[in-house]
């Protein structure tokens, strides 16, 4: 399982304020917890922070990179911003693995961002939606996912650099859509061999829900059974990570041992508390 950490995101008020203030300390404090929890990739998003968005993005990428060599996921819904930011970050951090988060399967978006991914040797997250918005069913998700996958492969990308995101919506706002996500992953996993990665923005499922953490970890485990292998999560949520590792053991993706959670942490080089 590849863990993208979600916390360095300007949608959180503390991060949003820290960016224009160039408050590295706060970013590093948050990041340290995400890394200690087991993050493999750090997702960064400037949110609606004040100031020049390109400069903000570069600053945030460099600030994160000061603490870790881990890959960065450059997160924005604005394709035009990513078109500007990705080459700049690539130039500033030539040896860091990057992932573009994200691009829809709408032709205009793919034409803009897939070439940027190829030129800058980055991975890319493809959303299973197009100009018509988020599909309300499985079929359209599969259609969009297949379109995105084929377009990226034809542009010369390898499946290992392609992440399909079947789009997670909150349970309190979008009933039935969670089932569609799971079935979407299941069907998309069959259309290409080797399969691309499948990713979800997990916390979306529980936005403004009281029992958000319980919803998060339950939904993560459900998606894992369908073939999810990547997720953007709060990696500092230990119960979530423990549930994820447990599901992987039960699915036979990791070898069981009595201390399998500790084994997982040892392999990641994380503190094991002993």
């Amino acid at each position, binding site marked *: 399982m590849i863990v993208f950490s979600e916390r360095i995101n300007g949608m959180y008020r503390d991060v949003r304020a820290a960016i224009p203030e160039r408050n590295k300390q706060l970013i590093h404090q948050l990041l340290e917890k995400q890394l200690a929890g087991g993050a493999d990739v750090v997702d960064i998003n400037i949110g609606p922070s004040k100031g020049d968005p390109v400069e903000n993005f570069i600053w945030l990428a460099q600030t994160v990179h000061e603490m870790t060599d881990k890959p960065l996921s450059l997160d924005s819904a604005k394709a035009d911003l990513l078109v500007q930011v990705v080459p700049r970050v690539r130039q500033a951090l030539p040896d860091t693995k990057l992932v573009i988060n994200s691009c829809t399967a709408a032709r205009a978006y793919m034409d803009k961002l897939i070439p940027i991914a190829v030129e800058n040797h980055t991975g890319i997250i493809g959303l299973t939606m197009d100009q018509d918005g988020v599909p309300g069913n499985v079929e359209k998700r599969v259609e969009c996912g297949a379109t995105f996958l084929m377009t990226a*492969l034809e542009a010369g990308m390898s499946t290992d650099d392609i992440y399909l995101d079947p789009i997670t919506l909150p349970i309190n706002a979008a009933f039935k859509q969670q089932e569609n996500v799971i079935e979407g992953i299941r069907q998309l996993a069959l259309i290409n*061999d*080797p399969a691309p990665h499948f990713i979800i923005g997990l916390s979306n499922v529980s936005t403004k829900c009281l029992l958000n953490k319980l919803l998060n970890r339950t939904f993560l485990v459900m998606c894992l059974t369908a073939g999810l292998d990547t997720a953007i999560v709060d990696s500092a949520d230990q119960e979530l990570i423990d549930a994820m590792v447990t599901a992987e053991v039960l699915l036979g993706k*990791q*070898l*069981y*041992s*009595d*201390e399998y959670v*500790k*084994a997982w942490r*040892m*392999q990641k080089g994380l503190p*094991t508390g*002993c």
Partner: protein
Amino acid sequence: MTIPEAKEKWTGRVNPVTLGATKAEGGTRGRAVTIGGADGIPFLGFDGQTPHPPAIALDVLDKPPAEWPRPLAEVYGDVWSDPAAWARRAKELGADLVNLRLVSTHPDEDDRPPEAAAETVRAVLAAVDLPLIIWGCDVAEKDQKVMPKVAEVAQGENCLLGAATETEYRTLAAAAQAYRHKLITLAPCDINKSKQVNILVSDTGFPLTDIVIYPTTAALGYGMEYIYSILERGRLAALSGDRLMAQPVILDVGYEAWRAKEARATGGDADAWGPIAQRGPAWEAVTATTLLQGGADLLVLRHPVAMAAVRNVIRQLSGA
């Protein structure tokens, strides 16, 4: 669209582990032997490389064995009252390593003291310059006294010491680390326990890269398939990046194969099974060559004919 590559893409690799230390490395061995290092399925050259072919150790006991059948007595009977002479025989026969078993320290055998065991190890080290694998008597309480002493007299020789288990690992791991030896971790026919023992040993500060896994062994006709599937799963875990299962594997084939009645029985029905001189080596060789396919890096054997057959198979399967 092009046809996708059929070969597996592995992220992990079996740790290479070097046994024995030459003069330059602070020991007195003539040469060191490296096992492991594979980054693909055994003998599938297109899948990955096996930089070090499986090594073979021959058994040496520290007292004359009571129950070794005639084909083995014919090879070792004249030397088996002297472990040093026996070890020299093993070297003459072409072993890569000597597998020394301190069986006489067993409380129900001769209950020999740690000092006597240490003396035996010293004598064997002086007699041959091959790397050594050294086992206690498999009684934890006694081994905890014997093995630290043995580790001490073999200091710097980079021996392989056996065996740490889920309940008894601290003393042996400490001795191996203090006197710079490698360590065998043992979990009988249980891959999950095998991983757990490695976690426990690693927790003591012992490096995961200095461990060799012993999943126990079963001979042809006596549950070999259980061990085979454990080898296979362990190897796939290692190649998939599980660092707690990335250790090379030792198998005690000689001991198990020569326990089989097919290898040792004479008279009655057994006479129809073929000449006793061939049955034992054949049982040993078939067990060894089968288990090698599952992923094994160090084989302990007994009969030179079996050793020759196994080497021949390794050579042919490696395309060398």
